[in-house]
C-alpha cells in the first residue's frame, strides 16, 4: 500500500510518528520551556527523541494517564510548555476529566499529542485505536485541534501548536505518509489548504485520508471529474471561508476521515455547509462499528476508507448535484 502513488507522489519514507518525534525535538531545542511527558510509550509515540537529547525535560510518569495530564496541567500553570504524549485512546478515555477540567476549562497552555489516531495502527486492535478523538476533543471548546497529513505539515503544526497560547490537541498516526507539501507551503491554525484544484466536486479530508483523497482525485480525473482536494488540517477552528467557497464553486462535497462518522469531522463541515451554502454531500468514514486487528491496508478496505470509496462517494455527490439541475 503506497498512499499517494496514483496521484504521483513519491513513496513515503518515514512513519508519521517518527516525523513527530523529530519535530518535537526541534521545538524542544528551540524553546527551553518545552517539557515532554510520557506514559511508558515514548518508543511508540516517538516522544523519546526528547528523552535522549534533554533527559532533564522529559518525564516518564509510567502507565498513569490521569496523572500524566494533571502533572502536565500543573507544569503549564507555572509557565512551562508541556507536550503530554500517549496514545489518543488512552489519554481521552482514561483522562478525559483531567483534560476537560485541568486543561480545557482552565484554559491552560498545554499541548496534547494523541498518537496512533485512526485504525491504521494495525495489529494491537480496537482497544488502542483512536477513532473517537475528533468527537471527544470536539467536546472541549477551548481546544485547538490539529491533524497533520504529511511530514511537512506535521513539522509545521507541531511548531504552531507549541507557539500558540492555549490548549492544543494534535493527532499523530503510524503509517508512513507521502510528502504532499513543499517548503513554500504555508500553515496557520484555522487554515485549510487546497492541495489539488478542481471545480466538479470538493473532497475535504484530513490526516491519512488526504493522500488517499488525492489518489481518488487522480482516478476521477481519468473519468473527466476534476476534484478539488482540501486538506483540512485544523479541525478547530474550522476554515469556514475555504469550506464555503468549495461548496459554492463545486456544488458537491465529500468528506473523508479516519474516524467515526458520528461526531466526526464530516458532521462539522456539514454544519458549515448547511448554514452557508447547502449542496449535496457524501461522507467517508467509519460507520458505527469497532474494527479488528489486521494489517492497515486490509482494514482500510474492509472499513471503506480507500480511494475507491472516496471516488464512489464523489461520483454519487456529482450525480446528486446534476439531478438537482
Amino acid at each position, binding site marked *: 500500500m503506497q498512499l499517494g502513488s496514483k496521484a504521483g507522489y513519491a513513496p513515503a519514507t518515514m512513519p508519521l510518528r517518527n516525523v513527530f518525534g523529530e519535530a518535537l525535538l526541534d521545538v524542544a531545542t528551540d524553546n527551553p520551556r518545552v517539557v515532554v511527558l*510520557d506514559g*511508558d*510509550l*515514548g*518508543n*511508540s509515540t516517538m516522544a523519546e527523541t526528547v528523552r535522549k537529547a534533554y533527559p532533564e525535560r522529559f518525564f*516518564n*510518569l*509510567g*502507565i*498513569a*494517564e*490521569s*496523572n500524566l495530564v494533571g502533572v502536565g496541567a500543573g507544569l503549564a500553570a507555572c509557565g512551562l510548555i508541556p507536550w503530554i504524549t500517549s496514545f489518543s*485512546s*488512552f489519554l481521552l*478515555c*482514561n483522562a478525559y476529566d483531567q483534560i476537560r477540567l485541568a486543561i480545557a476549562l482552565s484554559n491552560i497552555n498545554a499541548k496534547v499529542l494523541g498518537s496512533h489516531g485512526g485504525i491504521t495502527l*494495525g*495489529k*494491537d*486492535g*480496537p*482497544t*488502542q485505536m483512536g477513532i473517537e478523538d475528533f468527537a471527544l476533543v470536539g467536546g472541549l471548546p477551548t481546544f485547538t485541534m490539529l491533524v497533520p497529513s504529511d511530514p511537512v505539515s506535521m513539522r509545521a503544526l507541531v511548531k504552531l501548536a507549541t507557539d500558540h497560547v492555549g490548549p492544543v490537541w494534535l493527532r499523530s498516526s503510524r503509517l508512513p505518509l507521502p510528502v504532499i507539501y513543499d517548503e513554500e507551503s504555508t500553515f496557520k491554525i484555522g487554515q485549510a489548504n487546497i492541495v489539488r484544484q478542481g471545480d466538479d466536486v470538493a473532497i475535504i479530508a484530513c490526516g491519512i485520508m488526504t493522500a488517499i483523497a488525492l489518489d481518488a482525485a487522480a482516478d476521477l480525473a481519468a473519468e473527466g471529474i476534476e476534484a478539488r482536494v482540501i486538506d483540512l488540517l485544523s479541525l478547530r477552528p474550522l476554515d469556514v471561508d475555504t469550506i464555503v467557497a468549495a461548496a459554492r464553486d463545486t456544488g458537491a462535497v465529500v468528506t473523508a476521515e479516519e474516524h467515526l462518522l458520528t461526531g466526526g469531522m464530516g458532521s462539522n463541515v456539514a454544519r458549515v455547509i448547511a448554514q452557508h451554502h447547502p449542496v449535496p454531500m457524501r461522507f467517508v468514514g467509519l460507520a458505527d462499528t469497532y474494527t*479488528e*486487528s*489486521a*494489517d492497515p491496508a*486490509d*482494514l482500510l478496505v*474492509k472499513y471503506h476508507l480507500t480511494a475507491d470509496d472516496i471516488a464512489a462517494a464523489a461520483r454519487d455527490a456529482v450525480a446528486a448535484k446534476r439531478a438537482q439541475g
Partner: protein
Amino acid sequence: MLTDLELQLKSIEYRATILRIIKQARAGHTGGDLSSIDILNVLYNNVMQVSPATFADPNRDRYVQSKGHCVEALYTVLADQGYFPQEELDTLCQYQSHFVGHPTRSVPGIEQNTGALGHGLAVAGGMALAAKLDGRSYRVFTLLGDGELAEGSNWEASLAASHYRLDNLVVIVDRNRLQISGNTETVAPLEPLHEKFAAFGYAVREVDGNDPAALMDIFNRVPFEAGKPNLVLANTVKGKGVSFMENSVKWHHRVPTDEEYATAMRELDEARAKLTAQASEAGQRRYPVHA
C-alpha cells in the same frame, strides 16, 4: 487435575504455542506472555472451577485478565481447554478474525474486554461483589501487570475490595519488574509493594510465579484470611523459559526472527527432555485434589 510434572510440561507446550502464534501473527507481547503463562496454566488446569461446559453457569469461577496485552497466553490456554479449536489460534490478529490483539468477549471463554491497562481489577471486584450479593461461592481471579499498577484505578478498586470484604477476589500481580520503558523501579517505583497492598487491606502472599507447585500451594490457601481480599504477589521473570528473552525489556513486544524462533524452540525442547528424564528418575509427585 494435573501433576506437578504435567503442569511443567504444559507450561513448556504453552510457551511453544505462544511463540508460534506470535511469530505467525507478526505481533504479540512475548515477554509478558512468558512471565504469566505458569499462572494461567495452574489457574485453568488445576484451580478454577470453569470449563467450556460450565462457562454459562452463574456459579463458575471467573478470570479477568487486566494485563490484556498478553492475550496470546490467554488464547493459548483457552484453546487447550477446548473453548475453541486449536487451529483458530492461527488466525490471531489476521484480517476478519475475532482473535484480536486484546481479550474480547467475542472469543469463547473470555469474560471481559481489557487491553487498556487499569480496568480489570475494578470489574473483577464488581463480579466478586455480585457473588456476595447473590450468595454464590464462586471466586474471581484477576491478573495485573506490575507496570499497570501505576494506574490509579487499581488503588481505587483496592479501597473498594477491602471495604466490601471481598475474600472471594484473588488479585494476582505479575511482578516481572519490567514495563515498556524499563524497570518499574526506575520508571514509577512501586516498592515497598507488599506493604502497600497490605496497607490497602489485602491479605498478601508472595510466591515464585513461575513455579507451578508453589502457585498450586498458594491458590489452595484461598481465602488467605476471612473478610480480606487476596493478593498474590507473583515474582516472575519476563520472557521466562527462553534464555535470551528473560529479563530483557526489548522482548516486551518483539516478534522473534526465524533464527531466534528456532533457538527458542530448541531451548524448550531441551527443557522438556530434561524434565522427562528427571521425572523417570524420581517418579511422579502427585498433588492433593483441590476441594
